């Protein structure tokens, strides 16, 4: 007899979005407790939270709410560990978030943070890093077996419901770095493994994404805050940032020309949305019209256009350009094992191995309903992960239709388009208390 969790995670091979919801929900409740009982004794941070909240078992979805972690947990290491090269302490920190012992990993030859990341990867623990607003990186661990399952999800559900053949026939263009410890970049590798012609991979930048480089940004901020940065070094840093942006634009010119030359072939285009927008400008300038790419082309993008200097309808324009190809339009976040793909009715569907929890603004009360549309803060328990606890609370404001069926006809709740974020901007509370962050400006601004 398969466990509830296995029954759900087996759906990574197919059929995920056609399961009767009542059954899925029942399996999710059981699987959540299976996973909790498995992981609690093994993950220090989860055990501590469970003890504080007095949670011994997950009997209902409500019991998961106190066991959610935000992005913050994955960047909660003291920066001084990195600055002072205390890699053994960084290992200890990461160990509090993981169920498998990692303290045996030899970090004695690690010289910088990139070495540390590589050292862990060689030992079977992949880290996805992402830089937050402060320039400080989060590190989300993914084990080899978790990654294998994520690879399967990419193969099964890319561009769902209209999925392309995983026949490795396409010329891949990544509108960003081709290597580095980031979820988006690893996703490119996973897409490549299923859909791209081996060896036919083209990256905007061949330089791997470097955490040490991202950390320089944070270090510069600190130096400014402490008053130790000289005006020359600040000016040099700002110039370097501008030069890098300029180099990226030139690289984009080159990659756009290459895409244009190969436009009749099946392509695989990946990258952040804003890069797709810049690419679109260049291809249009060369005379390309909407919907003229090879129909076997796959387009994958992720993330939002927040803060980018682009027109309001940039996403629509980009999607019109990609008419007639396989385009992957998901709602998701880098911490989750799978995006929530978009159906014909324009709604996002929740994979059965991810429990969706809609909470109030404060993230304390579960609002999941039996029917109707409810608005709230998105939280999840990703049942797929075994290398860390998959309980995640986000800052996203969602509207979920808890009706038995989506307008597309498939069972289960669906997320409506128009996802925004909870922010405190505009509250107009004025206070005399603030930090040095308010005194820092320029290229290093948060």
């Amino acid at each position, binding site marked *: 007899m398969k466990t509830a969790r296995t029954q759900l995670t087996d759906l990574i091979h197919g059929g995920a979005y056609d399961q009767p919801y009542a059954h899925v929900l029942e399996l999710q409740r059981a699987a959540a407790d299976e996973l909790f009982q498995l992981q609690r004794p093994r993950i220090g941070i989860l055990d501590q939270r469970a003890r504080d909240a007095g949670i011994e078992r997950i009997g209902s979805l409500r019991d998961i709410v106190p066991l959610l972690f935000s992005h913050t947990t994955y960047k909660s290491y003291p920066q001084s560990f990195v600055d002072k090269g205390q890699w053994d302490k960084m290992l200890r920190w990461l160990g509090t978030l993981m169920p498998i012992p990692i303290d045996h990993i030899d970090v004695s030859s690690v010289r910088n943070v990139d070495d540390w990341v590589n050292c862990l990867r060689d030992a079977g623990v992949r880290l996805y890093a992402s830089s937050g607003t402060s320039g400080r990186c989060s590190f989300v661990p993914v084990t080899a077996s978790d990654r294998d399952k994520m690879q399967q999800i990419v193969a099964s559900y890319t561009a769902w419901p209209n999925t392309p053949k995983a026949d490795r026939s396409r010329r891949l263009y990544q509108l960003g770095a081709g290597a580095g410890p980031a979820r988006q970049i690893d996703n490119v590798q996973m897409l490549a493994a299923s859909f791209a012609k081996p060896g036919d991979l083209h990256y905007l930048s061949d330089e791997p994404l470097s955490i040490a480089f991202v950390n320089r940004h944070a270090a510069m901020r600190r130096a400014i805050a402490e008053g130790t940065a000289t005006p020359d070094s600040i000016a040099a840093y700002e110039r370097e940032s501008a030069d890098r942006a300029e180099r990226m634009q030139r690289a984009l010119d080159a990659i756009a020309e290459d895409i244009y030359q190969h436009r009749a072939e099946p392509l695989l285009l990946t990258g952040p949305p804003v890069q797709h927008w810049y690419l679109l400008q260049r291809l249009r300038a060369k005379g390309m019209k909407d919907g003229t790419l090879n129909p076997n082309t796959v387009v994958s993008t992720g993330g939002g256009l927040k803060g980018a200097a682009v027109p309001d309808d940039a996403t629509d324009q980009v999607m019109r350009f990609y008419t007639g190809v396989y385009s992957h339009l998901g709602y998701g976040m880098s911490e989750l094992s799978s995006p929530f793909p978009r159906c014909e009715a324009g709604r996002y569907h929740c994979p059965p191995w991810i429990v969706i929890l809609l909470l109030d603004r404060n993230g304390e009360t579960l609002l999941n309903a039996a029917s109707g549309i409810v608005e709230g803060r998105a939280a999840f328990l990703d049942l797929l992960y075994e290398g860390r606890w998959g309980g995640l609370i986000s800052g996203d404001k969602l509207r979920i239709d808890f009706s038995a069926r989506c307008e597309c006809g498939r069972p289960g709740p669906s997320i409506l388009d128009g996802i925004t974020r909870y922010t405190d901007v505009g509250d107009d509370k004025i206070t005399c208390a*603030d930090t040095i962050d308010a*005194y820092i400006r320029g290229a290093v601004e948060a």
Partner: protein
Amino acid sequence: MSAQLDPSTLQTPIAVPHFIQGQLLTQTSTTYRPAHGVPFSTPALDLGKLVWSRQQPCPALHTPLNEIYDVLVATGDLLKRDSHGYLAQALDSMALASPLPRPILDFCYGNLWRMFERTKLEFQVDKEVGGADVIDGWREIMRPDGRAAYVRAFAPRLIHVVAGNTPEVAAMSIVMGALSKGVHLLKLPSNDLYTATAILRTMAAVAPGHPVVQSFSTAYWRGGDEKIESALFRPQYFDKVVAWGGEATIRSVGRYIGPGLELVGFDPKTSISMVGREAFAQQVDLHEVAAAAAHDVTLYNQSACVCSRFIFIEADDAQADRFCAELARELNVDRDIATAIGPKTPADLREQIDVLKLMTPDYRVWGGYDGQGVVIRSHEPVDFHPDGKVINVVITPSLAAAVCHANVATQTVGVYPSSRKKELRDALAGAGVQRIVELGATMRGCRGLPHDGFYPLHRLMRWVKEED
């Protein structure tokens, strides 16, 4: 099928009156629904009524300062008795919307009158501008060439962007505004929509129609609203914008600063403490040192610029841990302007502290997340901003070595023992600090001394001269 609404959209808005050049406006027409907090409604804004024409002298220009002292002292007396109930009414509204618990608001409101005492008013005028004569008239000064000059601290036209995290800011703005004889538009913050108006109503009750009363207006609009601020923030109407903190506020106000319109920034700040090894001497009661430190940490439940967030301590781990244990107990005590149970620890801090708990012996944590307060002991300052009764005790080899953690955003440094202040003050001031006090004495400040690096009343005035 209909969307469930956020509970805040269902509540009846609280009415926020405006006070316009001596007149109270209570008829509300505009409703605001803050993302966090209670919805409120305000009177419609008549922009023309929010400015005073430069064609007319400021109403109080010719009122002797002595008479203004009398009005302020009488206002203080009535604030103390509150026989009209204006303060009580404001307090009830505040209690619904303020993040501060009722006992703290009660204490603050109960003591507002103290800011209106004559000795304090006179001290401020004497110390900041050298006496009432230079506000009342033209002070003669003999120049090196033997010719005379006449200097006056002239009535300024000011917009005050008032901070709302403590009610005292509204009172201080009104007291200094009255002493300046100028005209004053107080832009209310959403976290204190009531105190300024209640004080002005009280002043209007003791001196109906008085020129000083006509010199004040209070109004709310959403901070940063270009339609309003672009019309008002002009040198044709105002000399200076006095902004009390908040990065967003100061950045927003900055857009309008140009020739003729100056920014007086009471910049957003943070504060720290320093505890010397003397705290562990045999004859010293460590508990008392911890209590003094806790006083400085917990003011307004750690929501003000003056509240300490980091304590740098000369100690070994065992000594520091003893201090931390005492401190944690002292965070959980009711004080005049702190409650034993304060706000819950913010979720993002809690997540970071949870991890530190697992990082012993590098870190140790005392206290709890339900408002009792949290103490974190470490050898490096934590990377987050301690808030909501969270304090980081950082072991340092010497207090001098900890000066590097002070910077231009550091307001107050509380030092134990007091005798160590002198060895640190030059270095601290050099790093950007503007106030050095004995540990536990952060609330013993008074007007008439520098604040945020300048003399506030002196800086609010327009300094003009006539030369022979």
